[in-house]
């Protein structure tokens, strides 16, 4: 008999299958996942159609408005100039915004790390961790700008309100990001240290900290980029100073769009530098 070594005979007995047609190959799977995808798509599209047809445009003539917009954009991006404030004033304001972003990221990272350690499922008791996680979810749900506004009445308008407002959101965001990284750690690493009788903070600084440094750095820099955008926004909407405030004044009060364009270019330059640093750092840590 012809056999392949250690397997079934190549020639098989004819089977008594009454249906000679093989089962049709199904090209599309219908499963819960496909149903859900279709459902989500259809409802999103229906909501969008409803919203767009019911959008309140206050009877603005669209053609005129778009022509006006084009003119504004032309003034902004083709003919930017430093306007009445001058380059040095704008540069100083930009520096304030950058500092705001850096300070709040540092606060967010330090406080966020300790909270993340206390909130991670694999390190602390379940109730305590769940408490911190839901408190952070609440804080994250409130937009940064509202935090800044709330603090600006409580402690007075100025950099302190802006720093506290931005820090709150950063802490909540980074706590979640860090604790997710901590939860991905191999439990064997933690167990190995526990067996030696190491104390809680020894485990944190000898096992957790070295393992999560790459994702820690990566998340922190993502947050720095977000914080810079938020610092600009808080400056504009809460009057907390910095380049955002200049942007608000020139575009909303003095309508000097040449200067608005100039400010926007300055902000873009900073974000590109931040993005460049973030990409380089990620490559550096991934290479290790």
């Amino acid at each position, binding site marked *: 008999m012809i056999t392949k070594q250690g397997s079934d005979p190549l020639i098989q007995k004819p089977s008594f299958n009454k249906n000679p047609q093989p089962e049709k190959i199904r090209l599309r799977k219908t499963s819960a996942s496909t149903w859900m995808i279709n459902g989500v798509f259809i409802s999103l599209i229906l909501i969008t159609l409803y919203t767009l047809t019911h959008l309140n445009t206050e009877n603005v003539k669209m053609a005129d408005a778009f022509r006006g917009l084009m003119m504004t954009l032309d003034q902004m991006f083709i003919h930017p100039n430093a306007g009445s404030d001058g380059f040095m004033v704008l540069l100083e304001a930009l520096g304030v915004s950058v500092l705001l972003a850096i*300070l709040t990221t540092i606060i967010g990272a330090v406080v966020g790390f300790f909270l993340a350690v206390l909130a991670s499922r694999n390190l602390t008791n379940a109730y305590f961790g769940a408490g911190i996680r839901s408190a952070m979810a609440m804080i994250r749900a409130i937009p940064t700008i509202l935090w800044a506004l709330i603090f600006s009445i409580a402690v007075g308008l100025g950099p302190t309100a802006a720093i506290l407002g931005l820090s709150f959101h950063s802490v909540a965001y980074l706590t979640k990001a860090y604790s997710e990284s901590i939860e991905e750690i191999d439990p064997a690493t933690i167990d190995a240290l526990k067996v030696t009788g190491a104390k809680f903070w020894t485990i944190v600084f000898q096992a957790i900290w070295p393992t999560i440094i790459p994702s820690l750095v990566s998340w922190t820099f993502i947050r720095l980029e977000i914080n810079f955008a938020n610092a600009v926004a808080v400056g504009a909407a809460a009057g907390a100073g910095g380049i955002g405030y200049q942007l608000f004044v020139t575009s909303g009060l003095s309508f000097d769009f040449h200067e*608005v364009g100039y400010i926007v270019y300055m902000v873009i330059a900073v974000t590109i530098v931040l993005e460049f640093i973030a990409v380089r750092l990620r490559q550096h840590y991934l290479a290790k």
Partner: protein
Amino acid sequence: MNGSKLTAAKYLGHKRLVQSGVLLLVGLIYVVGCYLLKFDTIQGALSIPKAFSWLAINFMPTHESMSYLPQILNKLFETVLMAIASVVVAAVIAIFFAILGSKVTGINKFMQILVRGIASFFRNIPLVAWAMILLFSFKQSNFTGFLALLLMTIGFLIRAFMEIIEDEAGEAMLALKATGASYFQVIFQAVIPQIIPSLISWILYMIENNVRDATLVGILTGTGIGFIFDLYYKSFRFDAAGITVLSIIVVVIILETLSNQIRKVIL
């Protein structure tokens, strides 16, 4: 030879030195930053409990403030709809550009660089700038808020979709190309079906994000939930502002839970 011998103690010592150096640098930046911004860390930390007790007294909703609730919910509903619409329209535009510009499906090098440039430009213009420019031409209407969110979201989604296509669609594309399928067949039969779950995940994330950003846009352009918060806040009706914040929390958490459930099913 023995001069460059690397012992464990030496390695760890060097590592510790680098880490301490980095921490010291960060600390220094913090101190200098605080000095320049005139921010007193201890004073700031002490004012947090003060702020919260102030919040607890002033922002606490009373019986009378419940009468604001229908108006708040109405505006909030409007804001959520606007956020969803802006994300969906942005997603339709973004997927088109992402296919043109990604490294695996892109038409040519020039197009790829162009799309990347456009996406980065749209993404990095501050939302404040968009809102203020659009407010000037389109006046105080919901359409202004919608456009501001739309333009910002397009930039984000083009980048996200391009990364998804590059990460996930490569193999399926290659398989279909090998059968001799045309470019459009490859796009519609391989690329799009392959990336749909991640696509939806990103769309849901952007919706949550835009509900939050809509508050900022609302404060600046006088629309939606941001406008109503600003109105109550500036006219010292803090109890009503408190309910507005609470409703935002509830809606954002509901959206977050909902999208997490959807993600669990589709991914």
